[in-house]
């Protein structure tokens, strides 16, 4: 009987980091629209292996998100909409 292996073992395909690429967006805690892309619906920070950012930018992102949470631009937990 042929067993079909589910593709769980494969890593996600190599995405390029958004910030290292052509866009050159600056990571700023005031820029809520960009930060929203890296935060889940519940307000949690999305892991780097899913988004595809590089380590340096993920660290900067986390810092920016935490600063934005401090001044209530983003919630600590709960829906980010409304």
């Amino acid at each position: 009987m042929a067993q079909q292996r589910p593709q769980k073992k494969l890593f996600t395909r190599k995405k390029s980091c958004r910030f290292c690429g052509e866009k050159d967006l600056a990571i700023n805690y005031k820029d809520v629209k960009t930060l929203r892309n890296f935060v889940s619906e519940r307000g949690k920070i999305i892991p780097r292996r899913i988004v595809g950012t590089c380590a340096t930018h993920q660290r900067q992102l986390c810092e920016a998100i935490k600063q934005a949470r401090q001044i209530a631009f983003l919630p600590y937990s709960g829906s980010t909409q409304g």
Partner: protein
Amino acid sequence: MRRYETIFILRPNVGEDEIIKVIESTTQIILKEKGTILEMNRWGIKKLAYLIKKESLGYYVYCDYAGTPAAVAELERKFRIDDSVLKYLTIKTAISITEEGIQEALAAISAKETAKLEGEETDSIDSDDAEEENNLEETE
């Protein structure tokens, strides 16, 4: 002189006088320590992502300045005492900034503001026509 950015949130229902008083005291503190204020922006009332002291709206004020750490400490002490300030956040954006750096920053900020105003003017020309059309529809 280090370059800092401070955002503080005031209660939404305080009057204009109170807002002016808080902004005045912050400028006084910065200037007393011989700092320079690069930008003082009032962002107005925004919805907060979570309740702060049971308030769901807050009046945001943004301040970009060059100052000493002592000024920052005094500023935060004042904010902690004041009841109308809900939250504050100070971030250091540059370790040191010279006189020339301050001038450059001021120039850059004023250039950005004029560019924004010009953008708004061109937008408003279009929106005036749209407003006239809307008015005609309403009268009919």
